[in-house]
């Protein structure tokens, strides 16, 4: 296990400490255990709060999207495991500005049950919540069971849009509706080339032969649709893009946002190869890319691989993506 770490059990607390030391003007920690981070000016009075959360090991997800025009708070779990309902409640109370709180996070059982427990407790505190789940990974379930899909990098679009809506003063129901609208029109699929090693167990998250890739992999190394021989960048882009286009039902005349996301170890150069082919394919179909993002947005520690996300755009959705935002990891000006 070749990692730049100290005691594996301290991994999460220490990197959270590092984030706090680096960005004191943008973030502050809530509670003794510092597993809850909120934007430095939280709570923003009269504004809908947005709380996200989930396991660690995915930076910049989730902690990276706390800031102006994005989420207000995050509850931080151990590597690949949920935060507790108590931590989620703490985040909820810290960001509530009186307009209610949206829970916006990925569809994973552990997270769902813990956020759900927090809903009841928040109600007792008089805080109204709504929940929207990221569930954009088309490889995890067929379209008929889209509600059961897991959430991966595409949740970024929902953070951006819902965060912008909350910032301009939309109500809780409106912000939730916008998040839901974005999620429904977002599809993601990824490929994995090499596994992640969990700091605590030292075990790889999966095994792959030297010439293999896992198509449709999840951001915890969950198996995808099938395991095949490693393909070229163009072939991978074609397979992923075609699948996303079909799933979203988009065609000539549509406009989209595209996110090419690195899973951790894959160089930015390779992400641009994927973007290039994706751009060419969509252009050939008459689908315009009105907004693009290329880089690491949701990782899986040092996993090699990448995912492509597509969001079907409307003028409203595009305006929300274009709205200003600022966090330690993301800026839109």
């Amino acid at each position, binding site marked *: 296990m070749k990692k730049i770490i100290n005691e594996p059990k301290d991994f999460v607390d220490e990197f959270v400490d590092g984030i706090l030391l680096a960005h004191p003007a943008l973030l502050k920690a809530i509670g003794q255990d510092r597993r809850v981070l909120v934007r430095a000016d939280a709570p923003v009075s009269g504004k809908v709060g947005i709380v996200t959360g989930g396991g660690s090991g995915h930076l910049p997800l989730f902690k990276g999207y706390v800031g102006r025009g994005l989420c207000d708070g995050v509850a931080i*779990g151990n590597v690949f*495991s949920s935060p507790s309902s108590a931590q989620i409640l703490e985040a909820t109370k810290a960001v509530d500005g009186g307009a209610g709180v949206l829970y916006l996070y990925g569809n994973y*059982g*552990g997270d769902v049950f813990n956020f759900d427990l927090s809903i009841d407790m928040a109600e007792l505190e008089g805080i109204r919540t709504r929940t929207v789940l990221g569930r954009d990974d088309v490889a995890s379930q067929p379209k008929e069971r889209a509600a059961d899909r897991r959430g991966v990098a595409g949740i970024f679009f929902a953070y951006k849009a819902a965060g912008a809506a909350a910032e301009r003063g939309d109500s809780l129901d409106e912000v939730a509706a916008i998040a839901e609208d974005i999620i429904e029109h977002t599809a993601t699929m990824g490929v994995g080339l090499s596994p992640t090693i969990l700091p605590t167990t030292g075990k790889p998250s999966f095994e792959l032969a030297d010439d293999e890739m896992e198509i449709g992999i999840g951001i915890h190394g969950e198996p995808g649709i099938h395991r095949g021989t490693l393909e070229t960048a163009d072939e991978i882009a074609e397979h992923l893009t075609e699948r996303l286009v079909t799933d979203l039902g988009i065609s000539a005349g549509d406009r989209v946002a595209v996110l090419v996301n690195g899973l951790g170890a894959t160089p930015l150069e390779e992400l641009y190869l994927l973007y290039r082919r994706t751009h060419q394919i969509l252009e050939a179909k008459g689908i315009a890319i009105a907004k693009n993002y290329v880089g690491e947005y949701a990782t899986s520690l040092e996993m090699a691989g990448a995912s492509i996300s597509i969001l079907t755009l409307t003028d409203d959705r595009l305006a929300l993506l274009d709205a200003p935002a600022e966090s330690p990891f993301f800026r839109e000006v």
Partner: protein
Amino acid sequence: MNGHELSIAIQNCLTVFPEYADELGDLDQALGDGDLGITVSLGAQAVIDALLQLPPESKPTEVVLACAKAFANANPSTMAALVAGALLAGSRVWGDAESIDSEMVNKFALAAAESISQRGKSQVGDKTILDAMFPAAEALRETNSGADRLDAAIEAAERGVITSKELQSRRGRASWLQDRSIGLQDPGATAFLRFLQSWKASNTPSRAAVS
């Protein structure tokens, strides 16, 4: 059984239960993300620590409440949240009772399983912990003789684990494996079975005296 006796019995059980952590972790590695072993060992330790803090006059409901809270926060995960919710739901049927009898245990078991079913939107046959829990609760209800009750529950849970092996996972991480989940044994159901077996092994007369 009063609150103190219940607390001791749980502590005895949870001292043995983590011996199954590796097995459960491996099963979860095959079908999920492999963290169930950690959930079980950290959870058991957290519960024991919490129970040691309780005053001996605590009521059974208070004992279970302390367990639920400790288990929920030790290693938050699907199993931790579902089990914590199930313990809360089960203990609610006991109200303020100073002591519990077989009938109350039966009601607890059913309420616990139903809580998971409701929260998890899952039924028997979805290849989850419920495939072991519901049959065990049923077996308890049908067995009157004190000595045989636990054996009957264990046997029912074991049947549930084995039967569900050939099913396709319909809930949680394992469901993403779709038909590749068939033939693999559900870690959650297995955990429930191992818990009952640990209870039996640690609370037979010769060991129950340990405090």
